[in-house]
């Protein structure tokens, strides 16, 4: 890879191993996600897809190796990351309105004490309109359906205005129409030049909407243009690679070698 190409990387993985209790879930990952790229992460259950996203957000420190962020974001400083976890641990019984839940997306601007001004209100209204939740402002989150909740969370992502957006199975248990609406937002982010990474299981959707794909099965099986990655042969290999969790696995010797 040339130096010019390297400076436009949004996220670089350097011999990255992530895991739990010393057992790797992502093993020796090397490579980079180009700035402004739209990448799907696919693979069987237990392949380390969610773990990889957790590592990128910084919620899980690497067992070894490094994750380097935004070597060349246009805004210079540290890239802002927005992360939508697989099952967001949101307390749905908490008495908070949709409006308030969405407006915390402005955290990076308003922070702990900053006010929400008139301009911000306009942005919040726009975000709610973009996900089709106009009129839901005063509803408490406990009254939302699963799809509406996901729409609200996407509205919050919109407001976060992040350079890097990580989505962990954003369309699981979501109906076709909501999926289409939210997928349109993902495309919009891509068009705006943001780096988007989404963990997905629907191969059809990946083929249609995601230019690049990382096929992960604890180790990277294939990574590149979606059409070249999602071959029957690669998918079969990925299925075989995810072995059972071995409690007595020996220490990995690859680094020493």
């Amino acid at each position, binding site marked *: 890879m040339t130096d010019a190409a390297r400076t436009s990387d949004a996220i670089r993985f350097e011999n990255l191993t992530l895991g739990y209790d010393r057992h790797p879930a992502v093993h020796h990952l090397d490579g980079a996600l180009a700035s402004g790229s739209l990448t799907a992460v696919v693979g069987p259950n237990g392949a380390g897809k969610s773990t990889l996203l957790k590592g990128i*957000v910084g*919620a899980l420190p690497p067992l070894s190796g490094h994750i380097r962020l935004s070597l060349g974001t246009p805004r210079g400083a540290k890239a802002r*990351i*927005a*992360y939508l*976890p697989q099952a*967001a*641990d*949101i*307390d749905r019984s*908490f*008495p*908070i309105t949709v409006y308030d*839940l969405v407006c*915390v997306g402005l*955290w*990076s601007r308003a*922070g*702990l*004490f900053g006010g929400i001004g008139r301009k911000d209100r306009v942005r919040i209204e726009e975000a709610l309109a973009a996900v089709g939740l106009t009129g839901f402002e005063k509803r*408490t*989150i406990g009254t939302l359906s699963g799809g509406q909740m996901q729409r609200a969370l996407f509205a*919050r992502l919109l407001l*976060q205005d992040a350079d890097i957006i990580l989505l962990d199975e954003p369309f699981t248990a979501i109906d076709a129409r909501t999926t289409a609406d939210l997928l349109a937002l993902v495309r919009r982010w891509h068009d705006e030049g943001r780096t988007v990474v989404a963990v997905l299981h629907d191969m059809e959707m990946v083929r249609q909407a995601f230019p690049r794909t990382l096929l992960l099965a604890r180790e990277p099986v294939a990574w590149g243009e979606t059409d070249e990655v999602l071959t029957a042969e690669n998918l079969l290999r990925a299925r075989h690679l995810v072995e059972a969790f071995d409690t007595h696995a020996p220490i990995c010797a690859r680094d020493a070698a």
Partner: protein
Amino acid sequence: MLYDLLIDPFVEFDFMRRALVGAAALALSGGPVGVFLMLRRMSLTGDAMAHAILPGAAVGFLLYGLSLPAMTIGGLAAGFAVALAAGLVARTTALKEDAALAAFYLISLALGVTLVSLRGSNVDLLHVLFGTVLALDDATLLLVAGIATVTLAALAVLYRPLVLECVDPGFLRSVSRAGAVAHLAFLALVVINLVGGFHALGTLLAVGMMMLPAASARFWSGDITVMIGVSTLVGMLSGAAGLILSYHTGLPAGPSIILVAGGAYIASLFVGPVDGLLWRLVPGRHLEA
């Protein structure tokens, strides 16, 4: 008649006025703290920490008798120690925080009762366990009022991360490090409020002034701000009504206050407009959309 019943006790006796001011100050800070404890599903944590304060206060009592600073400092130290130790055990071992707290508070309670019995009489023990709301001196009142002031100011500062930490801790972690700080600061507020409450209501009942009004408020509104208001109001009214009840009937004052708050809770449980039990009996016909 009504004047004799409700106002006269406070006009007549200085100790009743002091008790009223003390109870009002406790309700002022206990109300919002209780609401957050409840929304964070930490209601039992508050209870456990109240018990944990006992051995600290007891050590102060052993060394200096019934001295306000000694017992306050002892209680604070014990409260913080248990809160931190339980958090540490929960974070570094397989034991969850509730189990860790239960273990620590049981040890604390047994230790505290033993320590008080070593030197004091049963009267002293009752004093520590159930408080002396009718014998609040200037220093204690200042302490309780000061704690209320600090608590309200701190809650105003912590409000945003505290709410967000309840709703969506994962999101807060991804945008800010304020979550852990807010959590620790909130635990500290719980401890100082329990120490304040302990002088008036004793270690066992201090938490009552937080949890009962907060649990009542849950049945009156679905909005946090209103809930905090209702909770504070219920606390204050319970304080006044409990004192009047104790004055006229000769019941012990601290338990009276908590009993009245308990009555308010049970009443709210039935008639509260948000999910009150009685409303289930008349469900009303379903709507069009």
